[in-house]
């Protein structure tokens, strides 16, 4: 699974790294490091949560057919109280 990083859209909300600091690494100003992110097996749920928490839409799940089939399976469900 891969996350496409649109670096120019990042405004340093740090919502992604709050979900998964190991996956979404920030620079000293608190903005995401450039370059797309390869996500390890077993971290897909966290990665997609982080991606979906970005207010600027700076992060995008790679939607190539292979990647999409994979991320459909791990689509997170909203937990209700």
């Amino acid at each position, binding site marked *: 699974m891969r996350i496409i990083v649109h670096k120019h*859209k990042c*405004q*340093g*909300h*740090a*919502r992604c*790294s*709050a979900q998964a600091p190991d996956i979404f690494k*920030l620079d*000293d*100003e*608190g*903005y995401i490091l450039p370059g797309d992110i390869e996500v390890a097996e077993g971290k897909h749920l966290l990665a997609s*949560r982080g991606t*979906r*928490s*970005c*207010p*600027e*839409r700076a992060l995008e799940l790679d939607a190539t057919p292979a990647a999409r089939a994979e991320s459909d399976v791990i689509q*997170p469900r*909203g*937990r*209700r*109280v």
Partner: protein
Amino acid sequence: MAINWVPDHIPPEMVRDFSLFKSPGMLPAPNGDPHAAVACVHAGPPIFYSPYNTRDGRGTWVITRASDQRRVLQDAETFSSHRSIFASALGENWPMIPLELDPPAHGVFRSLLNPLLSPKRAMVLEPAIRERAVTLIDRIAAAGTSCDVMKEFAFPFTVNIFLRFLGLPDHRLDTFVGWAKDLIHGDHLKRPAAAQTIVAFIDELATKRRKDPVDDFMTFILQAQVEGRQLSDVEVRGIGVLVFVAGLDTVAAAIGFDLAYLARNLKDQELLRSEPDRIALAVEELLRAYPTVQMIRVATKDIDFEGVPIRKGDYVSCATMIANRDPAEFECPNTIDLARENNRHAAFGYGPHRCLGSHLARREIVIGLEEWLARIPAFRIKKGTAPITSGGHVFGIKNLILHWS
């Protein structure tokens, strides 16, 4: 003063009788819920014109959809934030920095300040924040079974952290809070007077620190370099004033709204008390439900925006409380679901001007709730009392008297 004056280029059918200052539910009211009251705009068109939507009675376009607000706020070239809102109260014209600078100048100052308020920095400040919360709450718990949260916790907590960050003395806390209140909620006489006082104070502080540097924010600004030069006096003032006014009111209001919600929703209160790990996520939902600010931009050129004729000089309002109740963005936006995922709320804005203090503000709110819930048993709003809430340019909560046994 131009009130209810609609410019010629605005089609009459695009004008709506709505204002963040005067619409039903916006004026100060006991047990009010101004956030729920603004949500009603989503029953109407996604963009409309309000003829009186600023403090001085000016009209603005009102952007209701989160996706449209994102577009406006991300495009600082078309929608400028250079309004000299503070200076104009004094009949002057200088920008608060970085808020009222547009790119590229904005980026230079933003990069200078970002590291001081980064997520990492907020973590370093955490022990001091927690200690301050614990001291205040322990004192409240020891004193009895009731208190006014705003006066005894929310303000002394947030303002203290903020003054320490700035390197300002704690014993003047009440004075500073008074200035901020006059500036944000005061009338047409109190506001310019408060503005004057704050400018004089910041200028004086700069003079002092220039003579005797210490390890604080003002000294950092005075010694900093941008583009190979030191900052000018007006730039130092622009930064000092912004940081001063931005941090004084909003975080305290957020804590007040959050504790008022929990006081009225005992199941949620108990859930967070018994499972404190949920607090960080819950705070995002509370930030979505109870944000405090409206952002206003000025169009720098004519643009047809989603079918609406925005013309150069028009004001465009992006109210966070409206975007955060957008049904196109959030499932059941008026339901507060403390476990909501994918919560891309707009409480700290979008685009290059995203709230510089957001990481510190978040940590303060999370820590404040953690320590409050750990130390104060099941609490409710005290019988016979009612929190007074208000809309306006910055939403607020004036008092919150809680009771527990």
